[in-house]
């Protein structure tokens, strides 16, 4: 994606609200927030090759921290958001220590189990989190700006700015020596070790970074939604993030954002007609892994490649 393409994309996204109803704008906002979440997972999955089934943990920690602080302690945007990011970072730092000595299926199981512990806390400690009923009443942030962010349009622009900055930051990281080393580790970790790279350290830093960005998405989400529940710490949510990344195309920068847009859209449409969204999601998983493992962008590349040859 060239600089021109990126600029055009940002301009398009800035102008799009003019054509949308407020409901559709809300949906677009959600797509961007989940886009940030999916891009964070892509850093460890697509670039470093670390399969994680527990990425919702950091999203949820960011969301719950802000929610709890805003509702029960003090509603101060910068303070609460910073606390949310810090909490997500600390969680990733802890979980990374436990998980990253493992590979492949072990890593999948461990990340899943660790995130489930957090889910269990959110679900079981009703006195703190409201349990299954969730935590309602999170107000839109009063960010010390001269205007309120309670308005859907203004909040959308906040999210768009964060999305664009995140994409830009990840773009830099991915093209840095650090980012290239992650790709090398994905392709052949043993080779990288023997070439002088402390591969564990690289994976760990990527893991914590991905956790912080996931936490950022969680922070945005709880403000957007006004409400958070254990669903956002669940395995299904972690797996949904995985599907977003793979659907869009793992290892490409914006593929995951595309994937998240598709999934948010599908969920919205399908849930309006039937209760069987999870069934559809499951079918998408099966179909994707069987027929389009490289994702939508990969499919497109294959078709255009075929026509060219």
């Amino acid at each position, binding site marked *: 994606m060239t600089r021109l393409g990126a600029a055009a994309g940002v301009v398009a996204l800035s102008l799009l609200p003019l054509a949308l109803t407020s409901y559709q704008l809300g949906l677009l906002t959600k797509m961007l927030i989940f886009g940030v979440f999916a891009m964070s997972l892509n850093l460890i999955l697509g670039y470093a090759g670390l*399969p994680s*089934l527990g990425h919702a943990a950091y999203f949820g920690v960011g969301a719950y921290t802000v929610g709890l602080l805003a509702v029960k302690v003090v509603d101060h945007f910068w303070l609460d958001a910073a606390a949310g990011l810090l909490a997500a970072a600390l969680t990733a730092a802890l979980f990374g*220590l*436990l*998980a990253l*000595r*493992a*590979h*492949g*299926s*072990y890593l*999948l*199981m*461990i990340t*899943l*189990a*660790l995130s*489930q*512990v957090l889910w*269990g*806390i959110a679900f*079981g*400690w009703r006195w703190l989190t409201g349990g299954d009923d969730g935590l309602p009443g999170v107000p839109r942030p009063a960010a010390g700006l001269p205007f309120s962010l309670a308005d859907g349009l203004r909040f959308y622009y906040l999210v768009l700015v964060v999305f664009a900055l995140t994409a830009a930051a990840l773009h830099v990281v991915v093209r840095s020596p650090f980012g290239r080393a992650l790709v090398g580790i994905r392709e052949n970790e043993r080779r990288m070790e023997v070439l002088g790279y402390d591969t564990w350290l690289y994976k760990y830093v990527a893991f914590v970074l991905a956790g912080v960005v996931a936490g950022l998405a969680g922070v945005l989400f709880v403000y957007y939604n006004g409400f958070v529940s254990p669903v956002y710490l669940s*395995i*299904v949510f972690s*797996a949904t993030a*995985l*599907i977003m990344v*793979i659907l869009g195309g793992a290892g490409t920068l914006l593929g995951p954002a595309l994937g998240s847009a598709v999934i948010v859209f599908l969920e919205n449409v399908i849930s309006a007609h039937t209760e*069987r969204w*999870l*069934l559809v*999601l*499951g*079918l*998408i*998983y*099966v179909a*994707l*892994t*069987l027929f389009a*493992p490289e994702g939508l962008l990969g499919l497109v590349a294959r078709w255009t490649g075929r026509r060219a040859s």
Partner: protein
Amino acid sequence: MTFWAFQVLNGVSFGMLLFLLAAGLSLIYGVMRILNLAHGSYYVLGAYVALSVVRATESLLLAAAAGTAVVTAVGIFMERVLLRRLPRGEELPQALLTFGILLIVGDVSLWIWGGTPQTLPRPEILSQSVRLGPIVFPSYRLFVIGAGLAAGIGLWALQERTRLGAMVRAAIDDAEIARATGIDVSRLSTAVFALGAALAALGGIIGGPLLGVYPGADFEILLLAFVVVIIGGLGSLKGAFVGALLVGLLDNFGKALFPEFALFTIFAPMALILAVRPTGLFGARP
């Protein structure tokens, strides 16, 4: 004293259920390098099918057979039709596909059997309580312990004493070499998958009267099975047994003594194992 003895027996019986699941999970991974997330589905589907059959026929034996048969068929279908098409050597696509099945079966079960928790009835002869010294213990739970031990001994004998077992062991060590020595790894894979599915279904059916079956049970039991193999080591029968006992006891004591922190009583040993021996107590070399 009686409290502790009761809790220990409870924990052991729960552990035996976990063993049935973990053994299948571990076996499938050991031979085929597939992390089968649908294992939780096998558990609940077995229980649900048995529930319907017992309601229709009043025969628990028939219900158990039906439940096991249906789940085994699902397992064979998954292995032969779906999993075979995936590229070998990559573990994430396989995990995702099996997760898709987990979601599908879970939602279909919700659709067919509804969201209310249900329990399977106990057989008449096992509905009494038995006096063991100072404690009175439900005989059904003793049955569960017996069933788990029988399965353990059966699996161990299969693994150590039979030709099938020898092939499984060879395939666990190195599938390429196993194939080179003429072992039909393809048929073996299907057999192993079917066995794992059957064990999980039995776990659900036997556990049905104790734990019930409800939406979300598939995730819960899957998580516990994961903790068992993380602690015991993927691919090891001994690991599954020891891990299952440990997790069963810990989970039980955790819920009895510190219900608010029950998850931590499992989490702490798991974290310890991860820190000290990332591939589990009896796990294969990384």
